[in-house]
């Protein structure tokens, strides 16, 4: 019993730095700017004026939609590319397989800051700057996809070969085996990939800054930086209101679906 109390106490204490920033963000977004640095945990007079200000200063609804649809498209695309490549690297034998895998893995080692300039040049020459294409194509096919491929490969490697043998006996070809047998089994791994990818795209900061230049094309993280007054001074409470609106829906979805969420993540094939 004593042990239990101690454990709960420890957990509660450890929780503080994880929960407090979010709490502070939400409550401070309802404070007038003069109260931001006050010690009070709750705003003395909650105001939602900052929230309407967010929409007045930026096309925030449009930006929300941009972030959302880009993240969804990237997630679906990455799932497809990663499942195909992960499956092939894990289950199909073909000449040069290992070399090609290493080639693909290089992407895991490269910070995006390193290659952003050549990539920008590429998209500039294609006339695709200030469109959402670079934010969609590069994550699906480029470096950000590599972790997903790795996760899928690790999952497929652990799949018992007997299942495929049986399917082959039934006359299924490779594509059929992949689509009918392997893919349905890979649901947890795909779930993990989906979560990783969605978060990655949702949080992307450097790339939107680089590629997008008009406010109605912006994504949320980028939009958050735009709430400044005439002299370039930050409008903290408005920024916090916008930040709250970007964070809270995701948190709510997470709390509702957290079991599938975390169990999906736990299946990232790290057992291998």
């Amino acid at each position: 019993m004593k042990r239990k109390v101690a454990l709960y106490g420890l957990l509660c204490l450890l929780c503080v730095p994880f929960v407090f920033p979010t709490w502070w963000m939400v409550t401070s977004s309802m404070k007038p700017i003069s109260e931001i640095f006050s010690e009070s945990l709750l705003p003395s007079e909650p105001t939602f004026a900052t929230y309407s200000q967010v929409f007045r200063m930026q096309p925030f609804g449009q930006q929300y939609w941009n972030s959302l649809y880009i993240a969804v498209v990237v997630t679906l695309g990455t799932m497809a590319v990663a499942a195909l490549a992960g499956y092939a690297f894990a289950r199909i034998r073909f000449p040069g397989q290992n070399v090609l895998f290493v080639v693909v893995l290089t992407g895991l080692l490269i910070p995006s800051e390193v290659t952003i300039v050549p990539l920008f040049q590429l998209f500039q020459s294609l006339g695709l700057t200030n469109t959402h294409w670079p934010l969609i194509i590069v994550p699906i096919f480029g470096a950000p996809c590599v972790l997903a491929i790795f996760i899928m490969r690790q999952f497929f490697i652990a799949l018992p070969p007997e299942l495929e043998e049986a399917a082959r006996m039934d006359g299924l070809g490779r594509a059929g085996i992949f689509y009918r047998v392997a893919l349905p089994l890979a649901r947890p791994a795909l779930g993990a990939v989906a979560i990783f990818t969605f978060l990655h795209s949702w949080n992307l900061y450097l790339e939107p800054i680089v590629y997008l230049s008009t406010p109605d094309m912006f994504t949320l993280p980028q939009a958050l930086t735009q709430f400044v007054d005439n002299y370039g001074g930050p409008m903290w409470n408005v920024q916090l209101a916008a930040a709250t609106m970007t964070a809270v829906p995701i948190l709510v979805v997470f709390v509702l679906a957290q079991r599938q969420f975390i169990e999906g993540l736990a299946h990232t094939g790290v057992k291998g």
Partner: protein
Amino acid sequence: MTFWTYRRRDNLVGYLFVAPALLGSLAFVLVPLGLVGWYSLNEWNVLGGTFEFIGAENYQRLLADEKLRSALVATAWFAAGLVVLNLSLALLLAVLLNQKLRGTTIFRTLFFSPVLVSLVAWTLVWQLMLQPEGSVNGLLGFLGVDGPNWLRGDTTAMISVIVVQVIKNVGLNMVLFLAALQGVPAPLYEAAKIDGAGPWTRFRRITIPLISPTILLTSIITIVGSLQVFAQIAVLTQGGPGTSTTVLIYYLYQQAFQFHHFGYGATISVLLFVIVAALTLMQWRMRRKWVLHET
């Protein structure tokens, strides 16, 4: 026999399956990387609009650059602090949550929640909370501690950046550890208990070895990730005070984007790539030594 044997067809399917990823890697990773290598051999004056081949000159400059040396030291501290704190905290949380307790799901959710808050929002919030009159010192004052000016002291700035980053992301590693812990067969512990092993010995002798593959994976991801932490430093400290938190990637950004020494920036990129690759390779090699089993 037809030309399209099962094996040949299988090869073809294999190539087709990896084609999107492979072409993507070529176009969006390898070719850009090659270009960065080429830039590093040139003096690229962005303002003047000149692009001039200078051979290894940038690399010589790299060797003589004192600021680079201090950036490497800061990077080493940052990476080491981040990895140690992240992994030990993740493991601690996972072990706590793995106890048979009611309500662990709630705690798991809470510990994981910062992962979902967008990085920019998270950093902004911490920037405000870490001011001398911000909430962190407010909370400390509540406990009777007089908090420092976190982002202005050499050591405290580094600690702040590390801690903010760890709290943001430790949830991911925690979940991975939790899954690994749940995969450790209970009979092993029972047997060890019968042999008279205490909790600490059981943890060291059974848990750690059995979850070592997860430790390896998380440590690789965390180390590689630590070398890419940029926006957080840019917002919280701008590399200061002095140059105490100017890590390699921030220095790269300064040289290339702020000072327009783009050729030299590319040279630093190449160095960064080499370091990341070497570290990963080293850890991968080390797995034979301390990772128990491999599939």
